[in-house]
Structures are given as structure tokens and as C-alpha cells.
């Protein structure tokens, strides 16, 4: 939609929404948030982008086709689920690599749980975007 106001605001808002989505994703394990919410917010960002600047602009800004993004997300989530096979755990069991601090009190850690949530994020993001782009495109 060719609107100066919307387009100007979008410059800030898209970035803001994306940053906010990552924030919601990363703190989701301990605070409200998580992959779903973050993914939905990120998708909203691009929905806004598409509405303000047109779909082609949004698509080329994203660079990756959203469908592939979603597929990657499924792959990541599946990967984190089957990661446990290397640690003799059941599928989808949590694996934690603690870099600093203690698991329960904080510190920096890499866990397949987080990877899983990132997968969820990508799937939700990619899928919703796919839907938005597809419905926008209907002629």
C-alpha cells in the first residue's frame, strides 16, 4: 500500500518486531514467550512489510523462500529431537551443554530444547509467511 506514513514507520517497525521476536524466542524458556509467539511476531513483521512495501519487496528482503524456511525449521526441530540418539536418550529428551554457570540458575548453555524452540520459531515464521504471501498473491 503506497502510504508514506506506513512505509516510513515500517522501516523502524519491521526491525523492531524482528528483534522483539528474537527476544521472545530466547527468553521463552523462562518467561512468557517461546517459539510460537516469537514466530508469530516475526511473521507479523513481514506481514507488515508486505502490506507497506508490496509482496515482492518483502519476499526479496527475506531472500529465502518462506516455505524452505519452514522446512528448515521442521528439520531443525526433528534434528533436536533425534539429537538424543548420540547421548543414549529417548527421542526428544533434553540434552544440555552447559558452557558457564549452572543449569538451574542460569549461565550460558546450549540445549536441544532451545534448538527445538528455534525450529518451532522457524516453522511458524515460515509457514505463516507462506500463507500470507500465498493469500496476498491470489489474483
Amino acid at each position, binding site marked *: 500500500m503506497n502510504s508514506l506514513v506506513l512505509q516510513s514507520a515500517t522501516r523502524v517497525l519491521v526491525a523492531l518486531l524482528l528483534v522483539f521476536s528474537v527476544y521472545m524466542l530466547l527468553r521463552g524458556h*523462562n518467561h512468557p514467550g517461546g517459539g510460537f509467539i516469537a514466530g508469530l511476531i516475526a511473521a507479523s513483521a513481514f506481514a507488515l512489510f508486505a502490506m507497506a512495501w508490496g509482496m515482492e519487496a518483502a519476499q526479496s528482503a527475506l531472500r529465502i523462500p518462506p516455505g524452505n524456511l519452514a522446512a528448515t525449521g521442521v528439520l531443525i526441530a526433528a534434528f533436536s529431537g533425534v539429537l538424543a540418539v548420540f547421548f543414549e536418550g529417548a527421542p526428544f529428551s533434553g540434552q544440555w551443554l552447559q558452557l558457564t554457570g549452572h543449569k538451574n*540458575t*542460569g549461565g550460558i548453555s546450549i540445549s536441544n530444547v532451545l534448538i527445538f524452540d528455534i525450529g518451532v520459531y522457524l516453522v511458524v515464521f515460515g509457514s*505463516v509467511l507462506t*500463507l500470507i504471501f*500465498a493469500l496476498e498473491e*491470489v489474483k
Partner: protein
Amino acid sequence: MEGPLAIVVGILIATGVYLMLARDLLHYLFGLVMISNAANLAIFITGRLTRASPALIPEGLEVPPMPVANPLPQALILTAIVIGFGLLAFTLALIAQAYKVLGTLDVDTMRIAEPRKIKRKASP
């Protein structure tokens, strides 16, 4: 607390059913949204309501210090909401495409797969 909300669920279902029975596919979709919400709400209230805190555990503690809301129904509803969104979005696309291809949203006139008259053939 659950009682009034149970009635809310009933009202949502009643309206949802009424909408679904309309001739227009869009109204069907709205009915679906409503019943979808009703289902989620039903899970929420039968998992018992509480005005207690959200199911978060403060830093430094291992278990919630006070009663918290039942987290499991919430997780179920979250899953159901997102699944429902996927289904609704697909249905929306289907309706759009159906209108494009069939030229109508009136379900009473959608008789291509099941034509009005059964062909009765004199067959030996």
C-alpha cells in the same frame, strides 16, 4: 468461577453451530473459529480456573512458591490454537480458491461432486 465460563462456551458453540449452518461458506468459517475458541476455552476451564499467578517459577527457586495456574491445559491450548490457525488458514485458502473456481460461496449450489440427480440407468 468455572460456571459462567461454561455458559460462555455454550454460547460460543450455539452461535458457532448457527453460523456453520448458514448457506455461506464464510459464515461456516466464522462458526468454525467460534467453536475452535469454545473448544480451547472448554479445555481451559475443565483444567480448573485459578486467579493465581501464571505458571512461572521465579529466579532462585526450584518450585513455584505459591499456587500457580495449571500449566498443562495451557500447553494443550497453545498447541491447539496454533494447529487451529493452520487449519483455519487452509480453510480460508480453500474457500478463496473455491470461490475463484466455482464462482460461489453458497453451499446449496455446490453440487458438482454430488450432482442433483442420481443417474439411474436401466441396467440388466
